[in-house]
């Protein structure tokens, strides 16, 4: 029965991973940029919320509502000043520029807040601990479920936005072909700014929930980036729902690993990621049709011309 518990906990954890990953996925899907500072922005969001709560005493959820538009503005500004320039400069530049941003963000946070690990768990009272008792062995935390629900709602919202609204259509068109999108009246620069704003705003949400369910410090960013990326890769690029599935698989792998040893949690997740990546590479390299045909008819007898 212990495995059922891992699956449940892992699935709920997957909701968090979908949250942290959807911004990364969006930016990559629309702009083909992998933002190496993505995790650090989530931590920035967490610190922003933490600071608001510490200064004003409002609930973290209200603080998050304030932080979201601010982070969205940050995303748009970054698009204008950093991402847009790197887009035109070749494949290397976005990686170098965003890595530099990551270093700057982490260390500025350290400068501002020090090395202490913090958490928002004390601010949400019972929500951090309460759980439903499913069986006498399995507990499902309220917070974990909340995060999962928020993730699903966000994904549904984003999908709907992309599918049904004019701006969403413009984003999808620009993601496919920015040149031609301009030719049919889409302001691609504006579209990119919106996509970046959304992506960075989602990191604020993810960061806040990270702070609620665990601890964070100025250097927590890279780990979150890696998890986000692993979720995207495991699920496959293409749709946000795949990212959720990827997050769930990652979460389950990690939960199972946690049973094995103290560092097993991280290790199993990474290994599953590498295995999925390897399988995907092998499959994309090979001609799947030929493999299936060969499996059916057996090896070829003679070398044909």
């Amino acid at each position, binding site marked *: 029965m212990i495995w059922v518990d891992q699956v449940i906990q892992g699935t709920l954890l997957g909701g968090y991973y979908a949250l942290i990953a959807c911004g990364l996925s969006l930016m990559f899907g629309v702009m083909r940029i992998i933002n190496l500072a993505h995790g650090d922005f989530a931590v920035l969001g967490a610190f922003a919320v933490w600071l608001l709560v510490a200064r004003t005493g409002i609930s973290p959820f209200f603080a998050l509502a304030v932080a979201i538009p601010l982070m969205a503005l940050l995303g748009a500004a970054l698009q204008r000043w950093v991402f847009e320039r790197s887009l035109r400069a070749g494949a290397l530049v976005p990686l170098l520029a965003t890595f530099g941003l990551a270093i700057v963000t982490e260390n500025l946070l350290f400068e501002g807040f020090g090395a202490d690990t913090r958490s928002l768990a004390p601010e949400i009272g019972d929500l951090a601990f309460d759980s439903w008792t499913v069986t006498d062995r399995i507990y499902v935390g309220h917070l974990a479920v909340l995060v999962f629900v928020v993730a699903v709602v966000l994904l549904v919202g984003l999908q709907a936005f992309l599918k049904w609204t*004019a701006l969403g*259509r413009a984003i999808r068109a620009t993601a496919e*072909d920015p*040149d*031609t*999108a301009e*030719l*049919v009246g889409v*302001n691609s620069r504006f579209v990119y700014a919106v996509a970046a704003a959304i992506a960075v705003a989602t990191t604020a949400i993810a960061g806040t929930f990270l702070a609620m369910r665990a601890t964070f410090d100025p250097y927590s960013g890279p780990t979150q980036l890696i998890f986000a990326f692993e979720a995207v890769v495991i699920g496959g690029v293409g749709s946000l729902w795949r990212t959720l599935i990827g997050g769930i698989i990652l979460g389950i792998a990690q939960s199972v690993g946690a049973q094995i040893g103290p560092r097993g949690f991280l290790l199993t997740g990474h290994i599953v990621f590498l295995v999925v990546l390897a399988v995907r590479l092998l499959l994309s390299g090979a001609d799947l049709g030929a493999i299936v045909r060969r499996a059916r008819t057996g090896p070829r007898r003679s070398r044909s011309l």
Partner: protein
Amino acid sequence: MSLLAVEQLDARHGLLKAVRNVDLSVAEGEIVALVGANGAGKTTLLRTIAGAHRPESGRITFDGADIARLRAYERVKLGIALVPEGRRLFAGLTVEDNWRVAGDTRRTGPWDVEALLALFPMLKGRLKTPAGLLSGGEQQATAIGRALMTNPRLLLLDEISLGLAPLAIDNLYRSLTKLFSSGTALILVEQNLNRALGVATRVYCMLEGRIVLECDAGLASRQQITEAYFGLRRDSGREMRP
């Protein structure tokens, strides 16, 4: 006064000078054919007019206003639309979404989804199909429709016959008769001279980036056009004026 006036336009394609000192004009409602061999610079010229390409020097005036500094999407809002060479549809989007993206520019005019379906009845059942899965003829119809959704005053058509079977081309041109008589100004780049001359009132011929012939469609003889097309009587600048 012309709707579109291009004066002394120079444009590069990478390191190559693709458009050299081109003068061109299109009047309101006029259909102009632009012919020339592959690599003559027709696509670069159209793209420069549409704003997808930056000119090196020269003027582009639309409705009296200088548009050379405007980005492509701003020109769409003014009423210039390009059907790009090779169609360049948004393959992952449905036909309907391809049209709606263009329609979101909100210019007033006769073209909307219903009007387009009347123009291209073959697409009636294909609205929800991803554009990448369509046949060549359907894709071309979708691409033209997409440009029309912006209700342009000037429509630029770049090689719409490219890659289509002769029957499909026939169908396409048949569908487009309504467009040709709708009063929209057109620049039609077309490999097939007969079709081009059958539709247009004026012809420009380009060779190696320059305009080498400009005349009324009815007046030019086949021979003159062929010579200009292939550069058989080499002369820089214009060969013939009405």
